[in-house]
């Protein structure tokens, strides 16, 4: 088992201790949080700063396809796009990773061989997370063996909402161990956690259990990554590093479709967590259609003409 940071050894010693710790976290002011997220979203990012932000955002994308209809061909096409997002302009940076289901991880691995683009695989009975622990661990090990560099796990929201924090904690620790060298992203599905207080508790729970990344959503429910919930998680990783010295990444996923939205998130990162997180090792976007919009904006900046969907791939 990976060791828990010593600072939290007491807090995680029993269910009641963990509950006391998580419920002892400061409460979230929802109005203030949303106002803060909204006000940071009004920053005007233009010209060279915009060009920088667009390239940075492209390099942070986990290009995702998580459909029942995924075929090896589609995964290979997506991998090719991840390496050269805009074939007409080779100065376009590659995306950070390709994110697929575990059975497609091997296909993605083969397609991305020799490139810096990582293979991320969802695991642990994604997206519901409703399976026995053994099944989840087997799912995780399969993905790692197939060549996944990163594992995106979902927490058991049912257990979390029922107050079974220690169960969730132990599950994350077990999956972290099963992931071995792969970086572990822990998905909270913030849209199902009901309150901002719960999002803050889940963030700390995930980080204490050894998450390398905390991630908002699966993209499979009505409410996905919102600026407010992402801001809250960015505050959590900032505070966690201040307390323990351990840096944890953040990944908003789902519902981010336009360059404007992406740039707003980058502003949140810079203003909340700081410059250290403005790197695709520490911040990612889980997205698919966002990349096309970023490419169209990039073409607009390069040529001065508005581009159109005829000039990017149909995924």
């Amino acid at each position, binding site marked *: 088992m990976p060791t828990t940071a010593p600072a939290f050894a007491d807090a995680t010693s029993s269910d009641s201790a963990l509950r006391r710790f998580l419920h002892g976290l400061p409460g979230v002011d929802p109005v203030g949080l949303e106002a803060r997220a909204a006000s940071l979203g009004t920053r005007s990012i233009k010209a060279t700063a915009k060009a920088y932000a667009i390239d940075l955002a492209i390099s942070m994308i986990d290009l995702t396809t998580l459909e029942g209809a995924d075929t090896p061909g589609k995964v290979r096409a997506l991998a090719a796009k991840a390496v050269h997002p805009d074939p007409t302009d080779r100065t376009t940076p590659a995306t950070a990773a390709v994110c697929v289901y575990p059975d497609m991880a091997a296909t993605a691995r083969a397609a991305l061989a020799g490139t810096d683009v990582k293979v991320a695989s969802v695991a642990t009975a994604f997206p519901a997370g409703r399976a026995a622990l053994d099944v989840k661990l087997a799912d995780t090990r399969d993905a790692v063996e197939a060549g996944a560099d990163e594992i995106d796990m979902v927490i058991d929201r049912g257990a979390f909402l029922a107050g079974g924090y220690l169960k969730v904690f132990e599950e994350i620790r077990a999956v972290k161990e099963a992931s071995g060298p792969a970086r572990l992203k822990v998905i909270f599905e913030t849209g199902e956690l009901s309150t901002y207080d719960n999002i803050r508790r889940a963030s700390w729970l995930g980080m204490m259990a050894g998450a390398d990344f905390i991630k908002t959503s699966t993209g499979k429910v009505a409410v996905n990554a919102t600026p407010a919930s992402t801001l809250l998680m960015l505050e959590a990783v900032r505070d966690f590093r201040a307390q323990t010295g351990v840096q944890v990444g953040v990944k908003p996923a789902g519902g981010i479709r336009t360059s404007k939205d992406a740039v707003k998130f980058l502003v949140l990162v810079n203003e909340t967590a700081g410059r250290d997180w403005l790197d695709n090792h520490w911040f990612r976007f889980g997205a698919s259609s966002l990349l096309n919009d970023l490419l169209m904006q990039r*073409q607009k900046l390069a040529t*001065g*003409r*508005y*581009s*159109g*969907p*005829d*000039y990017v791939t149909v995924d």
Partner: protein
Amino acid sequence: MSEPTRLSVFKTYKLYVGGRFPRSESGRVYEVTRATSAAGAAAKGKSRSKGEGGGEWLANAPLSSRKDARDAVVAARKAFGGWSGATAYNRGQVLYRVAEMLQGRREQFVREVADAEGLSRSGAGAVVDAAIDRWVWYAGWTDKIGQIAGGANPVAGPYLNLSTPEPTGVVTVLAPQESSFLGLVSVIAPAIATGNTVVAVASERAPLPALSLGEVLATSDVPGGVVNILSGRTAEIAAPLAAHQDVNAIDLTGAAAQLAAELEVAAADNLKRVLRPRAEDWTADPGTDRLTAFLETKTVWHPTGSLGASGSAY
């Protein structure tokens, strides 16, 4: 005590984009004034402030920016699938409904056209009636243009060969500068009758009838985004639209010669269809020129039954 004075409620003219009525993204407006050629208009002016054109101030209209143009193209593209996929019969019904709504607001348009073009009430009434009739005329063409512009082609082989007209896509229309309503209807209606979606740039000096047309379209059954109406400086809005890679055609009717030449150069980049400006008499029978200007021809070859090995048809 004297009777309280009632303050009249002024109308805020707004753009019509994607079925909504936004202000310009830039927040800018410009003053629209009564046509100075109006006979006796100056004499009747009730000592209101003079606008920049020298005529009596009528209203402020949004001064659109290139981002409004971009948003309008996005809305038009989004609406294209549904509108071009609707049956021709259905499009005809929807366009006829627009004429019904125009008829119901005839008085408002008569007033706006009289102010915009310096016409008498009866003169403006004739223009508005002609515009409504023209809308009906184009509504009738939706399910007939296929027979005129398409057909079965005789080919030397065992094939049935069919050509059918298909809409070009998103069409930018620079509406005529002088004929603020009849001219506007005469350029928008034919483009949407065949299934295109339109981004229309209203007459720069007299945009109010065009902006009011947006209100009519919003209350007919025309899906949001099929027609988008922008007001402002034609040259400023037209430049990004002409260069826009997601616009398929541009009608330069409202552009002066020099501007039209520049826009045509910009439009060449993605091979837009271009309709050049020409002398127009908007009261004359329009013919089918404008209906066919923004159509593509799709031709399909279909094997006839005589190909079967047994000699039978399938």
